[in-house]
């Protein structure tokens, strides 16, 4: 699997390359923003590790250009600044994960594997129910073509509803599926989850079946 490493510090870049090679990946290292953008845009990578402070073109701009051109590979941002405003900007620009420097190499490799695992292993790429399309490769959703970013919990919830006969799932079933057990106050957590999901995908995708649980709306009204 080819990984693009964008890092201007030679020591850190080489160390990343060595660690990823040792972990069984093929790593390409580039040291500036323009080259990174070009490489990511033209070559086929499984994922990218992107430093934000880069010469020529900064990391966020590189990421935005990739996403604008439809390059969907997972991106893990590495940054020296590490403040929350930057983290939020990174995620909103389309990053999948974020790590602050200095980092522990084992953790970075583990997170990279996590990102790749989401992409791998799913054969059926997209399930479409009503207005909602669930991308089982990227674990993301879109509503009428508009991309919606999901947390793992939200993805698992939607995935469960998709695979239910009649697309209805009882609350205790959802709790067992999400948490492995069902406890009395899980209902509150699931309610909060649905509220937030509705805010993301729109109000008319998930309905509440009183006494039964939750369901996906099949027909677009």
């Amino acid at each position: 699997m080819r990984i693009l490493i964008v890092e201007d510090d030679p020591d850190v870049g080489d160390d990343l390359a060595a660690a990823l090679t040792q972990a069984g990946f093929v790593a390409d290292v580039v040291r500036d923003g323009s080259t990174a953008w070009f490489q990511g845009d033209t070559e086929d990578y499984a994922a990218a590790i992107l430093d934000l402070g880069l010469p020529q073109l900064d990391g966020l701009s590189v990421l935005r250009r990739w996403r604008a051109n439809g390059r969907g590979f997972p991106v893990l941002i590495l940054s020296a600044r590490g403040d929350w405003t930057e983290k939020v900007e990174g995620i909103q620009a389309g990053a999948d994960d974020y790590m602050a420097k200095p980092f522990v190499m084992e953790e970075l490799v583990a997170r990279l594997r996590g990102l790749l695992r989401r992409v791998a292993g799913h054969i059926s790429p997209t399930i479409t129910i009503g207005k909602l399309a669930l991308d089982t490769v990227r674990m993301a959703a879109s509503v009428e073509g508009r991309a919606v970013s999901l947390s793992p919990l939200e993805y698992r919830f939607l995935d469960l509803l998709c695979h239910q006969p009649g697309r209805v799932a009882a609350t205790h079933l959802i709790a067992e599926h999400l948490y492995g057990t069902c406890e009395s106050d899980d209902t509150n957590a699931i309610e909060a989850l649905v509220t937030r999901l509705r805010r993301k995908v729109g109000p008319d995708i998930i309905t509440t079946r009183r006494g039964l649980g939750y369901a996906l709306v099949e027909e677009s009204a």
Partner: protein
Amino acid sequence: MKPSAFLARSIHGRLILGAALAILLALGIAGSGLVWLFQRHIEQREAFSLEAKAKELLPGLHVDAAGKPVAETRPSDGRFWRPASGLYWQASTPAGAIHSRSLWDQSLALPSEVTLGTTGESWHLRHSDGPFRHGLIIIARQIRPDPARAPIIVQFATDDQPLAMLLDEFRLETALALCLLWLVLVLAAVVQIRLGLRPFRRVGAELDRLRRNPAERLSTDHPREIAPLIEAINALADARAADLERARRRAADLAHGLKTPLAALAAQSRRARAEGATQAADAIDRTIAVAQATLEAELARARSAIAREREAPAQADVAQIIEGVVSVVERTDAGGMLAFDIDVPVGLEAPLSPGDLAEILGALIENAAKYARRRIMISGRVEASTVVLRIGDDGLGIDSERFSQALLRGGRLDESGPGHGMGLSIAADLVMATGGMLSLGQPPLGGLSVELRWPMAEGER
């Protein structure tokens, strides 16, 4: 405080003491002058009165053949006839003398040549001890009724006791009046000094405010005389603020700049480990961890300090920032499987910069995600002109006795098991620096609830 120490340290005290002494000296000189003038005046009056009496004696005075003085008419005042009455006359030549009956068997001392002057033809006044233990005022002159014979020295004298009494009375009254005047003048000086120093008291109060809040400046409506001082102090405060800001930015830049080298050092450590130098690699890793913790603490401190000095707090869109922070946290391992229960009205604004609010909420929500079981509750509302945000989780929570420990910088409760860690103290610092309050609570359903409060700016109420 000893008086001398007080004077050494108080301009007020020194000015008042100086004024009191100067006024005392001036009044003393004035008083002595007045007494001298008065004394001269009454002595001259006495001399005139004696001269008038002498006019009765002088026309009938001549010298006989033996060279002794002879008086054909004598002064009429009865006191000249009563022995030791205090009023005397005497006419003397080298050959002999005649005198008033009041002198009895005594005589008046002759004036020296120097006192009488070269001609001796005008009256000369002098003080002298006289007979009968009297102090005397004596006037004396020399006449020469017969140019062929010796001149006569004529003296008229009066007891100076009544004059001395008059002078003493005058002295006492003058001293009393001058003391009263001294008191009034010193009081006036005190008032004047207080009024004069009042601008300095105000400057002192304003400087105190400046010390507590470096963003304050001294007001510019001070008297003309101290305006240059005020301008200089304000310029100094500006320069200091700029220096501080530069130093902080450099500290922050330095801290950020050190992170990449630390990452590079971590790379070296891994290489060393790969080559079998496990102990060296462990040591390097420990050093990196310490350096990183120090850097993070320094950055948090710098951020708090900058937030504290920010003059006009910006407005932060609470809902938008929470949304951003949650979108990051729900991608982390800890946050990925949690439900976020967000209840914040759209358009709610908090009186601090968006960056600071993101930092506070980031630390708190990330912290809550570490300990939550299923759910994180985030709510926001305005209560009595105060923006109130609550972040709660449904984890194990911490005992209320350990709340204060949790808020201490570096007080890591999670060292001793499940609890709430570093994020709290960083957030607490920043909340305080932005004029807010952070408090911890235990919601009835368990977990930990963090409450943030910021009073709204005046214009927003």
